[in-house]
């Protein structure tokens, strides 16, 4: 595996004090916090920063890392000698809940096994089970609606046959449950890190987000869409067909006198589920162009015969 230079990651010198490390970490954590950062690969960088901080902010881990890593450079092939941690006594305080499940193989190789055996109990029990993983997925609304099988590609750090760490693409075919909503989680049991024993693998949590869609939007359980109407459909009322994300068609009745900006709500025809959501159609009146003599004549006729002033108080 490749040696990781945690000092380089945190952009601090090797003799940096605890305060300097804390400041550097906080500065970078702000810069790459995945919820607010606009930097590319912010999530990956945040993981690297967290890992570096977990080692350098802990006096015991830092001392062990310094002793082991002297003379190595970032990216250099590296394997810790057997029993390298003999002679260090770890208090266990360093093995706090620091999100270790998300750290690299390099970190796991150096520090992952220290707590086990020395501090049996809850922490050890949790390590016996593989870590849970988290990933965001982007779905088409149409696929989510139908509950179609989805091929999902996730980038996972793996150690290859030569011991090098590289990002591997892991492909999963997942049956998306019907009616999944934005922000919901799908749990794939046993698809996290392998556990110490068979059957003890962690889970993979997929956080669902939808790709931008030109026709539809999901708001909670409601399906929101725009419904264009001709002026005569809006004025006289009509029955018009709307196409749902699964391709099926639903006929809805427009009441006479509908206006652009109005809403039509069809109960129970939103996102499938128990209870199902509503279909919310935002009405938009589209004017036909006056680009033929006949069309102009019709508009002129309306202008002449209808006493209509849209700017008058009350709208007419």
């Amino acid at each position, binding site marked *: 595996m490749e040696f990781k230079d945690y000092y380089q990651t945190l952009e601090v010198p090797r003799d940096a004090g605890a305060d300097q490390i804390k400041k550097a970490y906080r500065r970078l954590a702000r810069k790459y916090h995945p919820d607010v950062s606009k930097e590319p690969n912010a999530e990956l960088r945040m993981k690297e920063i967290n890992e570096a901080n977990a080692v350098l902010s802990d006096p015991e881990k830092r001392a062990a890392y310094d002793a082991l890593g002297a003379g190595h450079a970032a990216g250099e092939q590296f394997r810790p000698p057997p029993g390298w941690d003999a002679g260090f006594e770890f208090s266990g305080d360093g093995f706090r809940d620091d999100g270790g499940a998300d750290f690299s193989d390099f970190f796991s190789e150096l520090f992952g096994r220290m707590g086990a055996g020395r501090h049996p109990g809850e922490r050890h029990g949790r390590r016996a089970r593989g870590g849970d993983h988290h990933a965001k997925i982007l779905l088409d609304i149409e696929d989510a609606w139908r509950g179609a099988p989805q091929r999902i590609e996730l980038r996972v750090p793996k150690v290859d046959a030569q011991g090098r760490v590289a990002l591997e693409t892991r492909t*999963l*075919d997942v*049956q998306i449950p019907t009616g999944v909503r934005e922000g919901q989680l799908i*749990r794939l049991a046993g698809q996290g890190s392998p556990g110490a024993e068979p059957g003890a693998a962690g889970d993979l949590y997929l956080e669902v987000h939808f790709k931008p869609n030109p026709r539809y939007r999901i708001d909670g359980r409601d399906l929101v869409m725009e419904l264009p109407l001709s002026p005569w459909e809006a004025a006289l009322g009509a029955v018009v067909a709307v196409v749902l994300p699964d391709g099926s068609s639903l006929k809805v009745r427009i009441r006479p006198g509908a206006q652009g900006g109005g809403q039509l709500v069809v109960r129970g025809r939103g996102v499938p589920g128990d209870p199902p959501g509503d279909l919310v159609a935002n009405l938009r009146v589209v004017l036909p162009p006056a680009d033929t003599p006949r069309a102009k004549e019709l508009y002129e006729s309306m202008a002449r015969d209808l006493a209509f002033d849209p700017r008058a108080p009350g709208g007419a």
Partner: protein
Amino acid sequence: MPAPNVITGTLLEGQCLTLEQLCGACTVSAEWVSIHVREGRLQPPGEGPAQWRFSSRDLWRARRIRQLEVAFDAEPELAALFADLLEEVDRLRARLGASGL
């Protein structure tokens, strides 16, 4: 190439995660969760830890609060407030996206 197996996912609907599942998914201890429940920052239904059930949103929120506490040594109250603000940002971003902006 043989067709790969299709994995069936479980949709986390409502309050469905046990304390142990939440701890595993967030890499936190049961004690950490108990403190946040006691202080009202997480509000699962149920009388005691064995009956607590957490939602997808709780999981998301717990992970955010924990990350903020670890990253900035943030006071739990401050981390929870920041998590509230991030949730509001998510909602506003969703509305912006819906408006085509």
